[in-house]
Every structure is written in structure tokens, then in C-alpha cells.
């Protein structure tokens, strides 16, 4: 039986040490040393629990140094989520590179998770790859791609979401509409109100799902009122 390297008490100790160092006293070296220990746990044959705990702490202190070890777990059915738990908050483009790389290697739920994290981090470089997933035969993958593209809100994302919506059967429409809603909101926030209105008008059409249609019509009305246009 593999002996756990880190017991619960040790996890609490790591957190405690982490708090002490991040309280402003000599933060850099102890934090780096803590991170190195946690990376070692992630890479080792430690238990699932120990690795999950390490990921929990890395979510708070992880840097670029942790990315490779965490990325290696992205395809793990049990630990993939915790790898993303640690990766998502790390403010380094190495995370985006790793998540994008994983897109080509994963399927099913691990792929859905990676797509979700790309959306959270708003990695616009992933637009093309996500667009290709809009018609994935796995519905939850396609839906995740639609929502993530909504967060990216690039012109290519808008174009491909609209194209996919035109061709989508009814059961695939809600996620595509959600993606477009997010795009419209981003466009509006950046002053591109004409483009946002075009999306809302599209989503207000009679063939759109009821909740989408009603919400989009309301958003369009509000935007027009704000613009001072006649309804």
C-alpha cells in the first residue's frame, strides 16, 4: 500500500505556512519552496486525496512553475478537475498554452472541463479550435464550446456561433444562444452597440427558444432606449 506523503495535518500545515508567508514576511523564498513541495506531490505516486489537496493550495500560490505538472493531469478523469482548479487562477500565459494544447488530446468530460477553463480565462487564441467544436457529436462538448466562445466574444466567435445557430436542431440552440448573449453583452460593454443589437435582434426571432426570444427582445429594447432610438 502506498503511504501518503501528505496527511491531513500536513495539508493544514502547508496552508498555515502559506498564510504566514503571504502575510508579508519574507514571502518569496518560503512560497517557492512550498510550491516546489506541492509540485513534487502532484508528480508523485501519492494518493488522489494528497494530490487534490496539493492542487487546492496551488490554486492560491501556484505560478508558471506548477503548470507542467498540473497540465499532465488534465486528462485524468478524477484529478483533471483539481488540476484545472489550480491552473485557472494562475496569471501566466503558460496556463493558456497548456489548456489549448489539451484541446487536441482530450474527449468527453475532461475536454468539457478544459473548454470551461479556457472560457473563464478568456483565451482568445483558442477561438478557432473552439469554433471547430461547436458541432461536436458529443453534445456537452459542443455546449461548452458555445458558452466559452461567448466569453471570448471575438468577431470569429460571433460569426461561427451565428452560423452554427442557423444550422442547429432545436435541442442544440439554447447553448449557442447563451454564447451569443455573452458576445452581445461584451460588445455592448465595449461600445459596439450596433453589433450587440444585431445579435439581440437575431435572438429575438420567432424561431428562437421562448426564454431566449423574450430575453433578447428585452435586452434590445433596453439598449435602444439607452441609445435614444425609437422603439
Amino acid at each position, binding site marked *: 500500500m502506498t503511504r501518503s506523503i501528505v496527511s491531513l495535518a500536513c495539508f493544514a500545515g502547508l496552508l498555515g505556512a502559506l498564510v504566514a508567508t503571504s502575510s508579508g514576511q519574507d514571502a518569496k523564498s518560503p512560497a517557492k519552496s512550498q510550491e516546489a513541495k506541492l509540485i513534487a506531490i502532484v508528480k508523485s505516486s501519492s494518493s488522489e486525496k494528497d494530490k487534490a489537496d496539493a492542487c487546492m493550495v496551488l490554486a492560491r500560490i501556484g505560478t508558471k512553475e506548477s503548470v507542467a505538472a498540473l497540465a499532465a493531469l488534465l486528462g485524468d478523469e478524477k484529478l483533471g478537475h483539481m488540476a484545472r482548479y489550480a491552473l485557472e487562477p494562475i496569471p501566466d500565459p503558460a496556463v493558456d498554452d497548456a489548456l489549448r494544447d489539451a484541446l487536441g488530446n482530450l474527449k468527453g468530460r475532461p475536454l468539457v472541463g478544459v473548454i470551461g477553463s479556457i472560457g473563464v480565462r478568456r483565451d482568445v487564441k483558442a477561438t478557432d479550435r473552439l469554433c471547430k467544436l461547436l458541432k461536436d457529436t458529443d453534445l456537452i462538448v459542443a455546449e461548452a464550446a458555445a458558452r466559452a466562445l461567448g466569453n471570448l466574444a471575438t468577431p470569429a466567435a460571433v460569426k461561427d456561433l451565428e452560423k452554427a445557430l442557423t444550422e442547429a436542431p432545436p435541442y442544440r440552440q439554447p447553448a449557442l444562444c447563451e454564447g451569443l448573449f455573452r458576445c452581445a453583452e461584451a460588445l455592448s460593454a465595449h461600445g459596439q452597440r450596433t453589433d450587440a443589437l444585431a445579435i439581440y435582434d437575431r435572438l429575438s426571432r420567432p424561431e428562437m427558444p421562448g426564454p431566449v426570444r423574450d430575453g433578447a427582445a428585452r*435586452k434590445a429594447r433596453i439598449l435602444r432606449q439607452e441609445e435614444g432610438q425609437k422603439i
Partner: protein
Amino acid sequence: MSRTGAFTKRLNRRQYLKTAAAAGAACFMPTILPASALGRGGAVAPSERIVLGGIGIGSRGEFDLKWMLREKDVQFVAICDARKVRREAVKQRVDKHYGNSDCQKYPEMREFLATRPDIDAVLIATGDRWHSLATIMAMRAGKDVYSEKPSCMTIAEGREVVETARRYGRIYQTGVQRLSEANFVLAIELARSGKLGQVHTVRAHIAPWDAAEMSHAWLPGEPQPPKEEVDWDAWLGPCPWRPYNSTYIKGGWRGHYDFHTSCIGEWGAHTFAQSQAGIDASNTSAVEYHYVKNASGDGMVTKFGNGVQMVLSRGDQYWHGPCGMRFEGTEGWVASGDNYKQPEVSSSSLLEDGEKLLADYIERTGRPMNHVRNFFDCVKSRQQTVANPDVMHHSMSTVHAANICMWLKRDLKYDPVKEEFLSDPEANRLRTRAQREPWIY
């Protein structure tokens, strides 16, 4: 899954009415319409009824359900729960109430939401971990939502609920029902009225059990029941995976970091919303959080942008009932909590116009002293509820920031407009958590 039961009956009744009207004088058979279809005999016409479903109704949810079943213009038609025992229990309760066997059961939320377009609103009482995502999924499916508190596990989740409600034009009420209880509303209105002078302090009750730091331990794994009995994957939802243990699903999830919002969130979800209402801070969150060296956060001083401080308090020195709050001004104070006959005040003269103050509030806002009624009224009127998404998000952001202050063991400053901590990247990392696939909003 085919539509059956209450929905079919309602649809058939409407079709019947339409056909009967069109037939007119050509019909030689007398048309007999049941009185209930016309809203007579105390019944509410089907077209005026709010069709309600439930997601994850346990002990607290049953309490809400009992309230809701009393409303004559509400018809509960379906329950969705990852646990078979709860699906059965709720169905039994609802069927007994209506004297039929129409309540439908659904083990899976996506199917439930996709196949019941007849449902207007849902009661969500799943436990903290699922409240925001279930709300978001329901809203996307066109449902209005009554969600138990605390409504979200992170600042980011709360923001997403706000945006989704705006996106789909949905009505939402979070279960901080004391915002609709006379003693609390009167105390809030007294604070707002100027009768206390300049309010400088509000004290907010936090739960006298558990701590701000929560457990990261896994309970020992037990044999996982069949999915039909307990869908463990769905029960966990967006939270990190761990082995099944029956203690979690019987309420033992409290005190676990991944599932709970600590002693601060347990009552702070109520008392922070109450407190912020009384100091005109419902549209913002506290901007300063001062760390206290104890396990619970008792005595933590937070400060709002308007200069008012909110002090977290665990004990009973300021009140004599749960979920207390106390507003202190330059010319007096008022306190209320559960089981009060009336608010306690520094001077009895403060309550002389109490009835009028309350009556004015009700007339001004149109809000009854009944939290679920407020929700159902707003479902019909499309006006905002008293505990709407913005109120929820701003008070819960104060909760989450207070928790983060305790976890990091240092003072924090927060910008409620940007929704970020100032000069504290580690605190900012804790504003959100990666969700477990496929339960990602």
C-alpha cells in the same frame, strides 16, 4: 419523457374552453364548465396559476414548500432530486395536499428543465453548493427562481446569477425571508428613517456553530448506492469529487469547504442582507475587512463606503434570538432577531409610529410581509423582489470577502464596483473556483 398529469390536464382544459367557445350556438350538447376553470368557489383559474417545480427539496426546502402550497394561485407539479428518497417524500407530501397523484418525479435536472416548459418557477433548496448553478440552469430554461440561501459559493457565482437573471429577464428571490418579516422590516425602516440619528454601526449575527475555516477532509468512503437511489455525481455537481459517504447527503455537508459558506455565511446570508438594507448599502458590499484572531470571525469589523461599520457578532449580548441585527445611531438604537414580539429599542418613543412606518413601507413598496408571496406577486407583475439578484449578490459578496479575510488571516480592502480586492492577488484568486465538469456555467 412525455408530459403527463397536471400539465396535460391544464392544457386539455384550455383547449376545451377554446373549442367550446368556437362551437357556440351550433352545439346542441350543453357545455358544462367546472367552476374551478372559471375561478369560482375560491379556486384560481388555471390561466392565473403559477406552475411550480422543485429542485433538491430537503428539510429546509420542505419548510418553504409548506409555505408555498398554502398559496391558492400556485400549483406544485414536479420534483427533481438526485436522491430517490427525497423524490418520493416530496411527491407523497404534494399528492396528499392536492388529493391526487399528479406530482411527477425527475432524477435528472437537465431533463427536468428541458421537458417541462409548462413550469413557470422553481423552488431550489439543494444545499449551498448547487444553489447558483441550478438557478442559472433554471433561468436559461425560462423559469423564475426562488433559491434558498446562501445563494452562491463565490463572488463570481453571485455575479453570474445577476447576469443570467438580466439576460433572460427572470424573477428571482433568495430565501432571506426576514426581509419580509415585520419586526425586521420595522427595525430596518427605523434605521433608514433618521430616527436613530446618524447610523454609524450595525451588528450582524453570525452562526454560533462551526468556524470560518472549514474542513478539507474526505469522510471515509462507503459503497456507492445505485444511481437511481443516489446520483452521487449529480449530488456533488460542480464541487471537487470525493468518495461517497451517506453523512454528506443527510446534512453532514456543513463545515466542509467545498459545500458550505461557514458560520459567517450560514447566518450572514440573512443578517448581512438585513443589515445592509438598513444602512442603504443593498447595492454595494463592504470595502474594508479587519481580521480578528479567533476561529469564527466574531468581532470582525467591516466598513462600507458610506462610513458605516458592520460588526460581526456571534454571541447574544446584542439580541436574544437567532439572525439578529442591531442598528446603532447617534440618537438611539434598534435591534431585532427571531422570536421577538417587537424590535428592542433604546427608547420606547422610537416605536410610537411603528405601525405607520411599517404600513408606509408596505404601501410604498407593494411588498407583503410574506416572502414567498412577494416572490409569486413578482412572478406575475415582473417587478423586482425584495431579495432580488443584486441585493443577494452584494450581501453575499460581503460574506465571501469576510470569509476570505479569515482564511488569509489579514486585513483586506475590496472594490465593490470592480468586484476585486485591492493589491491582493491571492485574495482575488479566491473570488472564484473552477467548477467540476460537466457542471460548468
